[in-house]
């Protein structure tokens, strides 16, 4: 019998039984703290969930199809959670495979899982859920006015952008995980998914009320981040029905009413309202009570079903090839004159890498760390810094072109003359050579929209395989 089958049997006809959900990792692939994970297993959780995803690392991973995490660490983490869940014969659910959750990320994650199963002699039933949005369907929804931008700075989605996305994914909700679990499996690995859905599927199948279920899921998907001090260690939530109790599996971390309440601020634009594909979670009515020094009981969150389901869609498109050139300066006169020197060097470079009258096919941007590399301050500093780090960033149609611009930029920034110059040996220092580095393709997000749909299920197809047989 599958792990989910056993769990459903265990709860059949039994009321008032608490469900222990273990948040194994909020960022699988960066390392899972071993001691807390082992302690979590000793508490006999009913299932383990792990989130792998985030849109924070930017458009490059979604666009390129590369894993955001290192293959070596990803495999180590997958091995830890697979061995843990299979050893205890409990369901393991992983969301947003490979961070961005498109097919390439899911495929790479599934390949690692099969490799681990082979090496460790594991046999299990695996469901995978794809999250790539069919372009024709998205265009149809666009034409029907069912797609809305998720903020003022991204425009209406166009058919041109839909076609230009190198990957276009949708965040699946709880229903997709429920459909996968209904296929009687041990392990579920999903493409792009709402982090809550990973944890909400099993308790919603068991009939727990959705307010506390979704609130619990929103908290434990980040592992022990809701504690003081916050951290990445495994956490267990014991869901009692209308309430749940949180405990970090690292004894140093305390879940306090204040720390747990504060967690709902994290990476959310609104602290009391969380929109999901199937509805909205409201935590303004939530109550947080200390059980003891390290545990907190949470109750009172409300869930409202949406009138129509919706999917958050994310797309990234290639904008060119990126190269950088890195250097620094300790020359006070060079630093004081950067406002005029850098635009002059841009012009000099243009004249050297383009024919007269030719419109540049690249962009050349200087970032001035120490002055305004991180934030575009409206006024210069009262006193100039002693040193400045300068990074030239070039985006061009080809890698060769980007590197050509980077190399000419390096040479002419080094030797650029300016009034009052003392340092005629060179304006800048290189930490190593070559200081010009090819960074691969550059991408930008071209879709971050919400799409209303009639039916979520056809967008997130499920495949089942017997691994290790």
């Amino acid at each position, binding site marked *: 019998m599958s792990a989910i089958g056993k769990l459903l049997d265990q709860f059949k006809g039994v009321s008032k039984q608490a469900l222990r959900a273990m948040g194994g990792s909020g960022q699988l692939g960066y390392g899972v703290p071993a001691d807390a994970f082992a302690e979590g297993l000793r508490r006999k959780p009913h299932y383990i969930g792990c989130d792998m995803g985030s*849109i*924070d*690392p*930017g*458009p*490059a991973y979604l666009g390129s199809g590369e894993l955001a995490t290192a293959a070596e660490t990803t495999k180590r983490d997958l091995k830890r959670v697979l061995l843990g869940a299979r050893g205890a014969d409990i369901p393991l659910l992983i969301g947003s495979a490979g961070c961005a959750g498109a097919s390439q990320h899911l495929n790479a994650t599934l390949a690692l899982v099969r490799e681990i199963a082979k090496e460790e002699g594991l046999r299990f039933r695996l469901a995978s859920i794809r999250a790539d949005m069919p372009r024709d369907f998205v265009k149809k929804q666009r034409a029907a006015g069912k797609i809305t*931008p*998720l*903020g*003022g*700075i*991204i425009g209406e989605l166009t058919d041109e952008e839909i076609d230009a996305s190198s990957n276009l994914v949708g965040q699946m909700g709880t229903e997709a995980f429920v459909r996968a679990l209904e296929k009687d499996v041990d392990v579920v690995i999903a493409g792009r998914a709402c982090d809550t859905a990973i944890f909400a599927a099993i308790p919603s199948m068991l009939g727990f009320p959705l307010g506390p279920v979704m609130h619990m899921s929103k908290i434990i998907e980040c592992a022990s981040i809701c504690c003081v001090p916050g951290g990445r260690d495994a956490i267990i939530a014991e869901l009692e029905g209308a309430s749940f109790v949180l405990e970090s599996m690292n004894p140093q971390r305390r879940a306090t009413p*204040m720390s747990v*309440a*504060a967690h*709902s*601020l*994290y*990476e*959310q*634009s*609104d*602290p*009391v309202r969380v929109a999901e594909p199937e509805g909205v979670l409201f935590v303004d009515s*939530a109550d*947080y009570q200390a059980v003891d020094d390290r545990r907190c009981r949470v109750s009172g969150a409300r869930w409202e079903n949406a009138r129509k389901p919706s999917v958050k869609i994310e797309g990234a498109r290639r*904008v060119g090839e990126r190269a950088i050139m890195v250097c620094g300066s300790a020359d006070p006169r060079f630093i004081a004159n950067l406002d005029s020197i850098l635009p002059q060097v841009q012009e000099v470079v243009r004249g050297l890498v383009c024919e007269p009258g030719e419109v540049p096919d690249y*962009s050349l*941007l200087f*970032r001035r760390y120490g002055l305004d*590399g*991180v*934030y*575009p301050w*409206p006024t210069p500093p009262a006193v100039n810094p002693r040193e400045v780090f300068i990074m030239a*960033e070039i*985006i061009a149609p080809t890698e060769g072109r980007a590197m050509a611009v980077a190399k000419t930029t390096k040479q002419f920034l080094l030797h650029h003359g300016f009034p009052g110059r003392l340092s005629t040996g060179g304006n800048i220092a290189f930490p190593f050579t070559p200081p010009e580095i090819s960074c691969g393709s*550059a*991408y*930008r*997000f071209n879709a*971050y929209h919400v799409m209303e749909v009639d039916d979520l299920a056809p967008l997130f197809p499920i495949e089942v395989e017997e691994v290790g047989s």
Partner: protein
Amino acid sequence: MTRLDSLARVVRSKNAGPLTITLDVMFEDRADYDRALQSPGFSTEAIGKAYGIPASGVEIMPYPKALAIKVSMDRKIVAGDPGDRDVYGAQQHAPILALEI
């Protein structure tokens, strides 16, 4: 008058998705929280001025349960677009540190 970075326990920024910057300012006690919330130095006008955007682009959301005030605003550039300076948005809290409360 006290600078915000002397009064608050946490002043942080982060993306809330690639289009939005969200700031969380947390306080040690209710008195400090109330003081900041009621201060003209922590108004949508003052925060907008610190970022060079109109007050209408700043949303202030008190969250008393965590003695915290959330401030959300549009990013000036989509996270990770060419020219962005802070892909995660984790360093966009700097302009409000010096707000006078």
